């Protein structure tokens, strides 16, 4: 029997065009039907130097299915190189050309002598969702563009986090991670967002190590870089939100990089002092509102479900109900991710469900006894179900319908404060 998936939280692998869009002056060249890009471009911003409306696309049709679309791909790349001024062109293939067997790699190899680099990533939808697509794009850069460097820059760290645009706070988060790394005396290098782009990609091989801040997305890229470029990596699975996790994060990164402990503790103390000064001032607000939300659930991808669960338990002292991970985490990673939910303060453990079907998630939320009004942090899909339970709802994961985020962030000490502000803004509105 056909299986129905209700309200899934991801797109197909071709959705990785978001990741390409996030690298400044890098252009996706789509080898797909015209409808693919149209559907995938929703909610990722359709203006700017490059935006989905101008992505070159082969717009393949029935003829290309029968006769092959490689000629069209060749002319599309050729013309994109002529008329669009980009630093790097990444060809992304959709389902159709891969099903009919177009050899995109061969066509792309014909552009090896072009003035600008052209690479390709196989992002057919049947290969996985846009989290996997993101990995494919980074893989393509590693495999086809980067070369091993004997020159290393002391203290240079490549930072990798979750998927741009899919993660609402991607830009702010990665900038704040950079700031934290900079404060402990290291030099951050990231490729996504404003004023990064190709010059930062070129610096990747010179890094002392890769820092991956994500439960699973990008882990395969780190392994690939270790093999090909000889860059060791530190995998830090928890997105550090709030004081407890961020301090842990800084200590672990510092230890890995060989930074002086005293220096790290000094940075931590300065941040924590201010953090707890703020918390102290509003302690009464937390205590009063504690009555409302004894238990909470997060419905998001692995990074937010894990990061926010740890934050709400460790920093705010809330009790976790079932936490839902909606990103279709690969089966071989699930056990490791679930293990992280057992590492909470106060001897608490959170139950975690890997579930992509929103109907089942909602049924579970409805049937769980939250010992009062639930606090649900999730996608917009959870708004209605939470309201039905008279709970408090905050939209923190895709899809996002009720807020606009430019460069706000939840990561780090400041990010933790922002998240508290957002949660209690919702909570206090109850009484108005």
């Amino acid at each position: 029997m056909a299986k129905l998936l209700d309200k899934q939280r991801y797109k197909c692998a071709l959705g990785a065009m978001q990741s390409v869009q996030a690298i400044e002056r890098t252009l996706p060249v789509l080898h797909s039907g015209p409808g693919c890009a149209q559907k995938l471009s929703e909610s990722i911003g359709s203006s700017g130097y490059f935006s989905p409306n101008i992505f070159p696309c082969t717009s393949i049709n029935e003829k290309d299915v029968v006769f092959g679309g490689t000629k069209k791909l060749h002319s599309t790349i050729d013309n994109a190189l002529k008329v669009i001024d980009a630093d790097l062109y990444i060809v992304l293939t959709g389902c159709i050309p891969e099903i009919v067997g177009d050899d995109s790699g061969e066509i792309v190899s014909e552009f090896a002598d072009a003035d600008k680099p052209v690479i390709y990533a196989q992002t057919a939808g049947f290969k996985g969702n846009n989290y996997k697509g993101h990995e494919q794009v980074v893989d393509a850069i590693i495999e086809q563009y980067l070369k091993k460097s004997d020159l290393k820059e002391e203290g240079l760290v490549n930072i990798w986090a979750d998927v741009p645009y899919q993660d609402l706070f991607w830009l702010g988060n990665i900038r704040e991670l950079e700031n934290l790394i900079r404060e402990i005396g290291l030099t951050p290098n990231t490729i996504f967002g404003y004023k990064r782009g190709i010059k930062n990609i070129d610096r990747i091989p010179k890094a002392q190590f890769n820092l991956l801040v994500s439960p699973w997305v990008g882990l395969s890229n780190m392994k690939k870089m270790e093999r090909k470029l000889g860059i060791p990596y530190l995998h830090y699975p928890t997105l550090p939100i709030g004081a407890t996790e961020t301090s842990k994060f800084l200590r672990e990164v510092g230890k890995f990089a060989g930074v002086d402990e005293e220096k790290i503790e000094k940075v931590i103390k300065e941040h924590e002092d201010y953090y707890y000064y703020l918390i102290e001032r509003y302690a009464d607000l937390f205590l009063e509102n504690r009555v409302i939300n004894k238990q909470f659930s997060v419905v998001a991808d692995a990074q937010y479900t894990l990061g926010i669960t740890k934050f709400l338990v460790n920093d705010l002292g809330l009790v976790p109900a079932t936490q839902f991970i909606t990103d279709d985490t690969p089966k071989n990673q699930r056990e490791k991710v679930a293990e992280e939910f057992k590492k909470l303060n106060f001897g608490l453990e959170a139950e975690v469900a890997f579930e992509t079907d929103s109907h089942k998630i909602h049924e579970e939320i409805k049937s769980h006894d939250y010992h009062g009004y639930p606090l649900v942090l999730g996608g917009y899909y959870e708004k209605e179900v939470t309201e039905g339970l008279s709970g408090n709802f905050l939209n923190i994961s895709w899809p996002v319908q009720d807020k606009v985020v430019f460069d706000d962030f939840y990561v780090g000490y400041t990010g933790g404060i922002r998240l508290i502000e957002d949660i209690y803004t919702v909570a206090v509105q109850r009484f108005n």
Partner: protein
Amino acid sequence: MAYKIAVGTSDEINVDLKFGELTELHIYEADGENYSLSEIREIDLPEQENERSENHVANCSQKGCGNGGGCGGSSGISARVLAVSDCRCIVCTKVGFQAQKQLERKAISYFDVECTIDEALGKITNYYKRINRD
């Protein structure tokens, strides 16, 4: 089930005519992966069509293009589309935008390719066989 494919050719070997140049159609009958020429069909073109190419520019400047016929061109397209209406698809070197739209409305596929008839029909019959419309 057998079905028909229309081909635009001047030499019966290559697909070498544009849709707008067609005055006759080579109709092939296909069944599974087998196909054979079954008919050479004259297209019943309106008279003005024959003069169109010579008077094309003059017509435009005199009458303007707002007469609904688009420089008197659409009747020729209609006649050609009508002529292929019992076929599953038409194979020729180019199909104009107006013709594409009219063919789509009749659910007739078009393949604008430049190759031999055998290559085109081989691929097309294989395609239809695979998508299980036989």
